[in-house]
């Protein structure tokens, strides 16, 4: 046992290139048609943002091709690739092909000309597209808003949505647009017109990192755009424009299309954009918006704690006790999903991981791995000294509880008992076995259990025999 412990992988992250997980937006874009993508690539800011979302190898390939006037032979680029990594290279080229950044061609390698022109323009500046946002004229009367205010505004908006989800509708309601989006994305559902309830996808969603959560919602939003007669390309352009804007600066709403103006209102609800008044002619992006294209953003929401250390707040002991240094209602509510909380202090919540609390979470559709990864990412710095980070006993036990849940399977069916004679019982049982519907049998008690599908046949068989016997 001890040797297997030693072989346990440490918390060192896997640095192999193939462990790279593509950004959620990339598959979404790959599913779009070439015309949509070509329109998308007309804006320099869109090219820049999409470029940033690509995998590192793909980025380097795009850069290598960017300043070439004519496509080059596949073999020319291929000769730069280390032979052992040929697979990753082919994958990267195929990926770029699906995005229509590198047109599929068996012999030549070159960039889509629209993409090339726009991206060159993004790097060198110039042009008249105004795709990086038109700055608003400085206003003498009102100084522009501070970054702290923007952060707290974004945080408050975002946490309102999440908190509403955790509390299953009892907390402050976010705006109707946000509510609709939550329902539409299947994170919350209302049954029979009652209060909307969080779904199992919703529970899983809560344990994701804020960056993933944000993109989850935005992708849902984009999916919805067709129903609402919004132009997908316009919406994407607006997202990408936001992501390249500067935090703490004000931009003008002039030149925005109708779609983009609607979008602006919705994004204000989610906390991505700040406006002084709804009718204001200027807006400022918040940190949620400006970090859209970075992979590990310093989102204010990741550490919405006013006290305690910034990077993590959860201490978990081998005796299943959990101490969370937080006063944030959202974090407490998320912990409450799988921890039974015992005491609450101004800056500390104490609880323990119990069989019941974990089972409750499992029934909600949260998996053991999600619980463990949440505990790992939010572990207190004090815990980081331990190896492995989360006590093995607790980790194993949570997994065992999950297995336990899978041990029981429920099937609907009927129990047949009260047979007069052993012969009757066996006759019916043989018939049921021929139908292959028997789930359980006990010859001693002269009883068996068959699934729902077989009931009509078995019932008929018994009745026919009863009549025949008379």
């Amino acid at each position, binding site marked *: 046992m001890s040797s297997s412990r030693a072989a346990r992988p440490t918390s060192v992250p896997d*640095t192999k290139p193939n462990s790279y997980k593509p950004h959620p937006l990339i598959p979404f874009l790959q599913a779009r048609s070439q015309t949509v993508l070509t329109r998308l690539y007309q804006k320099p800011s869109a090219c820049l943002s999409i470029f*940033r979302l690509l995998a590192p*190898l793909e980025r380097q390939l795009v850069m290598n091709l960017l300043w070439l006037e004519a496509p080059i032979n596949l073999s020319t680029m291929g000769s730069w690739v280390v032979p052992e990594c040929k697979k990753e290279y082919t994958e990267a080229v195929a990926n770029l092909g699906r995005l229509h950044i590198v047109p599929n061609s068996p012999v030549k390698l070159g960039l889509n000309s629209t993409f090339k022109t726009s991206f060159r323009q993004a790097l060198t500046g110039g042009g008249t597209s105004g795709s990086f946002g038109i700055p608003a004229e400085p206003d003498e009367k009102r100084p522009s808003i501070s970054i702290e205010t923007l952060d707290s505004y974004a945080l408050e908006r975002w946490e309102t949505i999440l908190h509403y989800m955790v509390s299953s509708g009892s907390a402050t309601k976010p705006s109707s647009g946000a509510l609709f989006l939550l329902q539409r994305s299947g994170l919350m559902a209302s049954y029979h017109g009652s209060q909307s309830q969080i779904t199992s996808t919703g529970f899983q969603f809560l344990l994701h990192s804020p960056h993933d959560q944000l993109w989850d919602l935005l992708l849902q939003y984009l999916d919805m755009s067709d129903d609402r007669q919004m132009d997908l390309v316009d919406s994407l352009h607006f997202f990408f424009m936001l992501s390249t804007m500067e935090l703490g600066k004000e931009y003008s709403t002039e030149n925005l299309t109708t779609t983009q103006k609607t979008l602006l209102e919705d994004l204000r609800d989610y906390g991505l954009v700040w406006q002084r008044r709804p009718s204001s002619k200027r807006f400022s992006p918040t940190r949620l918006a400006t970090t859209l294209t970075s992979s590990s953003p310093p989102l204010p929401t990741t550490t919405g704690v006013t006290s305690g250390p910034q990077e993590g707040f959860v201490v978990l002991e081998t005796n299943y006790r959990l101490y969370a240094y937080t006063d944030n209602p959202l974090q407490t509510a998320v912990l409450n999903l799988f921890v039974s909380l015992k005491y609450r202090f101004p800056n500390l919540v104490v609880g323990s991981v119990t069989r019941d609390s974990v089972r409750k979470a499992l029934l909600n559709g949260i998996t053991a791995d999600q619980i463990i990864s949440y505990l790992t990412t939010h572990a207190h710095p004090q815990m980081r000294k331990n190896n492995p980070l989360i006590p093995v006993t607790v980790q194993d036990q949570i997994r065992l509880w999950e297995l336990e849940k899978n041990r029981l399977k429920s099937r609907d069916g009927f129990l047949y008992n009260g047979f007069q004679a052993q012969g009757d019982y066996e006759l019916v049982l043989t018939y049921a076995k021929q139908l292959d519907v028997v789930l359980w049998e006990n010859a001693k008690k002269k009883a068996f259990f068959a699934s729902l599908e077989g009931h009509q046949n078995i019932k008929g068989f018994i009745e026919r025999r009863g009549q025949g016997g008379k």
Partner: protein
Amino acid sequence: MADSRGSHLSVVLDLSPSQWHLSAENPPTNPFPLSLSSFLSQLLTFLNAHIASKHENSLAVFGAFPRKSILLYASSNTPTSDDTMDANWFPPFRQVDFTVVRRITEELDSLEGASEDEAPTALVGALTKALCYVNRIMQPPAQAIAKPSDKVDLSTLPEPHILILSVSPDLATSYIPIMNAIFSAQKLKVMIDVCQIYGEDSVFLQQAAHLTGGSYILLERRDALLQYLIMCFLSPQSIRQTLSVPTQDRIDFRAACFCHKNIVDIGFICSVCLSIFCQPVPVCSTCRTKFPMKTLQRLNASRPASANVSNRPSPSPAQSRPAVTSTNGDTPRSHGLSELPSTSSINAHTRTASNGTKSS
């Protein structure tokens, strides 16, 4: 995830006015003229490409001017620019471009009245500053230092690399400082890339690139500078494992002697402190060790008549010499000094090698 850390790039620019003037001269003496202004515009695009690659990427630009080196731009401490914003330009690009160009123009203007004979550029100074900068950003954040017991999570620190864009010939006096810089770069695990844009191969910078695992390129087609920069120097170490970059197949490993600062093919090494001399000396100037007269005579006798001191800037690999002869040591105990073959540990950086690394 492999992608979660940004990469840091420090660029060291050699801005020697006279060399750039030569570089901009017209054909036929100079087949591919490259003026400073067109160099800068290509460089800025390259810098933008680095910042574009990732939100977390950081950048520092150092300039080496005659007699002084300064930090031209650093992404960590840029003052918020109050110039008007431009809807067609990504704000960080604008900031880099403006700051770098403005600082260079200021510095070059201040050189205007300088004397005719130009002082050599402070390339080593700039390189050292770049290393200091890397060292600073590689330090874990302040809280972690307070609690030394905490392990620093290496995966969050940026991946550093340094790019030297040089136009000046080697400066023999800077041999020791360059070597020291290389050693500290090795210790910091910083890769040094070198692009010799104008002039002949640089012996010392070749060694710098080789010893730190970087790439060295002597630019022949100066009109394709940007493509060279992007293909060879943009990728961080992790990408180079997949998409290889050119490395040298021949490296000039010659060293400069401590006594006359000449670049030597065959040197004489003090067996006590490893100082290099171009001719046998009775007393080591560094550690004051006295060598026996007998060995001195023998070594003098065995010296080839002409090939001992070389000032040729360009090495011809065909003439590569296998080794450096060791000036015999002279600690009283050692007797069989005379025939000491140069040990591998001693001559690691003085051998003229013809079997350098070969890229795949």
